[in-house]
């Protein structure tokens, strides 16, 4: 089930998950600084998000421009738990409601915050909230056969609407500022390097788990049907498959994975705010997948890590150049590398070996 490219990637991930903690915690002189640990953890969350998008776009042809919304929902679920963990250590030292609610004059916790002081419920909501949204949204969209660019545009509208909603103060999610000032998670201090290393290793594990799960799903019979849907939706329907059920399943699964990525992301960056819902963020996820190679899973993860790292470097060194670079990347990848870097690389390799390249079906 695990082919060569995934084997190599998982091995690399394993090395990373061993070297970084050792370098940060055990070795003298700390060759791996703590900020880098949090950064790597962040990239790994992005990679998981990219894998989630690749699952629907690469294997089922659904170009979602709203995956940032599922990521952010997972993040908010985790953020709510972290907010409740602060307890009475906030600025207003109010044990019953978080600071931002004190600020807007709320005396009691709204009902949708109930139970978020239990980690188990928050962890469940991390997958339930995005999964439910994806299920309801997908059920409406796929049932009425909204496809192609129309689907892309309404997913974009969905995340845009959510962004506007979360910007409202009376939504009870901190409005503009979002949720921040977290102190600890399950009793571990978030400022401690050991906690950061733990979260990073957890992110690596989640990414590995996500990759294996995605591989398993796409390798199964169901995965074959998904590829059929991508390549010839009407024909698959005429063969007797309930196309909308397959789409709904993979869309919901992907949204849940994105939610997990968001939940791991929030404690590592220490903030979640409505700008995570912005349509531009969601489109950036697409370029990660497109650059790495859609339908390759590993390529998507690599693409996310490379682009996110390039963003960190470029926005630091040449802030003006970043948008030019990102824009050029969008154009070049779509014009020159339709199968992404991984796809192009493997095609070239197999051509060199004299075996016929793998066929790319027309979308």
């Amino acid at each position, binding site marked *: 089930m695990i082919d060569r490219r995934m084997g190599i990637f998982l091995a690399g991930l394993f090395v990373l998950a061993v070297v970084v903690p050792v370098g940060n915690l055990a070795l003298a002189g700390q060759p791996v600084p703590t900020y880098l640990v949090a950064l790597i953890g962040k990239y790994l969350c992005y990679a998981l998000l990219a894998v989630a998008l690749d699952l629907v776009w690469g294997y089922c042809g659904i170009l979602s421009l709203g995956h940032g919304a599922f990521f952010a929902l997972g993040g908010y679920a985790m953020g709510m738990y972290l907010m409740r963990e602060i307890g009475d250590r906030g600025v207003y030292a109010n044990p019953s409601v978080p600071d931002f609610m004190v600020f807007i004059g709320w005396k009691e916790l709204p009902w949708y915050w109930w139970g978020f002081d239990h980690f188990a419920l928050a962890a469940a909501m991390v997958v339930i909230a995005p999964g439910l949204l994806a299920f309801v949204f997908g059920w409406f969209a796929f049932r009425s056969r*909204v496809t192609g*660019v129309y689907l892309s*545009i309404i997913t974009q509208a969905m995340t845009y609407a959510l962004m*506007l909603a979360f910007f409202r103060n009376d939504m009870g999610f901190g409005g503009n500022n979002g949720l921040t000032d977290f102190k600890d998670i399950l009793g571990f201090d978030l400022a401690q390097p050991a906690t950061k290393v733990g979260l990073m290793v957890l992110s690596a594990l989640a990414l590995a788990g996500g990759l294996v799960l995605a591989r398993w799903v796409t390798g199964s019979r169901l995965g074959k049907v998904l590829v059929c849907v991508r390549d010839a939706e009407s024909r698959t329907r005429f063969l007797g498959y309930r196309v909308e059920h397959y789409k709904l399943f993979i869309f919901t699964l992907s949204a849940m994975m994105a939610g997990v990525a968001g939940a791991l992301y929030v404690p590592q960056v220490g903030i979640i705010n409505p700008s995570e819902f912005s349509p531009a963020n969601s489109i950036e996820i697409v370029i990660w997948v497109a650059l790495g190679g859609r339908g390759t899973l590993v390529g998507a993860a690599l693409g996310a890590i490379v682009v996110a790292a390039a963003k960190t470097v470029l926005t630091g060194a040449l802030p*003006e150049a970043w*948008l030019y670079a990102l*824009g050029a*990347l969008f154009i070049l990848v*779509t014009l020159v590398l339709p199968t992404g870097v991984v796809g192009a690389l493997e095609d070239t390799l197999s051509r060199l070996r004299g075996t016929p390249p793998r066929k790319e079906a027309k979308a």
Partner: protein
Amino acid sequence: MTSLLRALALLLALGCAGAAAAQDFAGLIAALPGGSYADRAKVVKDLGLTGDPRALVVLRALEADDLKVLADGTPVIVNDKTGAAVAAVDGSDRGTPAADSLDRVKVNNAVRRALRSAIGMLTLRDPDPARRLAAARDALKAADPDQIEALDAALAAETDAGVAATLAEARAAAVLKSPDAAGPDQLAAIATLAARGDDAARAALTPVAASAKPDLAKAAQAALARIDEAQRFWGLAQNLWYGLSLGSVLMLAAVGLAITFGVMGVINMAHGELVMLGAYTTFVVQQVIRAEAPGLFGWSLVIAAPLAFVVAGAVGVVIERGIVRHLYGRPLETLLATWGVSLMLQQAVRSAFGPDNRDVGNPGWMSGAFHLGQMQITWNRLWILVFAFAVFAVLLMVLKRTPIGLQMRAVTQNRAMAANMGIRTGRVDALTFGLGSGIAGLAGVALSQIDNVSPNLGQNYIVDSFMVVVFGGAGNIWGTMAGAFTLGIANKFLEPFAGAVLGKILILVGIILFIQKRPRGLFAVKGRAVEA
């Protein structure tokens, strides 16, 4: 005959009043500095009732604390810059008295109130009708029974119909307040105010509705009910206007997209940035005009519009030839590539013009507002509505009545067949895309008048414009028009109940649900074109 007699009598009365005023004007001025504040307020009021233009000068001076008294008791008006004094009564020169020899005529709040009211009464005779209208509105608000006579006089002398109506209403409000007005007079006043039907009228009528005289109270209550109805109607009309205005903006932003997306099937995510380029073109044109030929400023938009069309259109042609051409038949890739273009254009404008909002001015004919009934209509919104329809009409003409429009439709309906007929499809593609982009530029000119011109301008409209096109149905520019106005009006009618943000969210959710029902929009193209 009777009306003629009445007019004659009025003129006679006016003449007498004028004569009387001339006699006691000097007396009133002389009495102004003496006595208590209450006496002074009384004198001020009497001065206002004289209707004498000379009184206006004195009262304005009193209001500005420039009215002083010389050592010999003569009131003078002192110019507070030069210190030169003129007599308050006849304006004769009194030299430049030493500052410490002057005594200021003091005012308190009661006197100030009297002053404002008196100045208002005197302004009723101002030669400028706009000033008279403002004074009449003040009088309506004051509703002072003592002003009835002055209002009658002003009413008789008034030539402007609009001002006369307001004067009559002001008189009606004053009559209602007056304890000794006759019943029929007050009933007539209620009718006059009910016809006005706005908040000022409501304020004047509300105390009367609780009056002890049953017939008056009843009439006032009926009038209030009528006013409520009128206000509901005008509220509706105002909402409708806001909706139309928003719809016209949406239509401008979306109609170019309707060409590139609707007709060609190309998702152009850089459309918003082309709008932004149009707005920046306007900015540059205005900068050049300000520097080189300030007299042309009124024409700046007329000059900017064709330039914006050319700039945005040229960029559009470059995008089509450079990128979109290679991606026909792959809509998702087109979407991503044009998103890349949009990022680069945004950054380019940010580098060239800076990240801040740029100031684009309104020419004279675009600024200000006028009233229609109780509705306020701003000129810039009205012109944008007109402009949107003009652009739409021209576009329709181009598509339906010109050879290039025919070729555009032919290529989009059946590319291979069109090519066989000798149409250069590549050239037509470029021109179509250029047309859609050029219209985006025109939208930018209009938006520069009502929105902030910043590098993010396009981002604010891109989701909305796609919603309009998707809602209206791709491939049909009539659908775009219907979609734009439906969404605009729906948005403005939701706003009072739900608030601006929630209203917008409801609209988005509504569209998402609507797409379920009609996946191809309001005006779907039927037939074989659907699967293309």
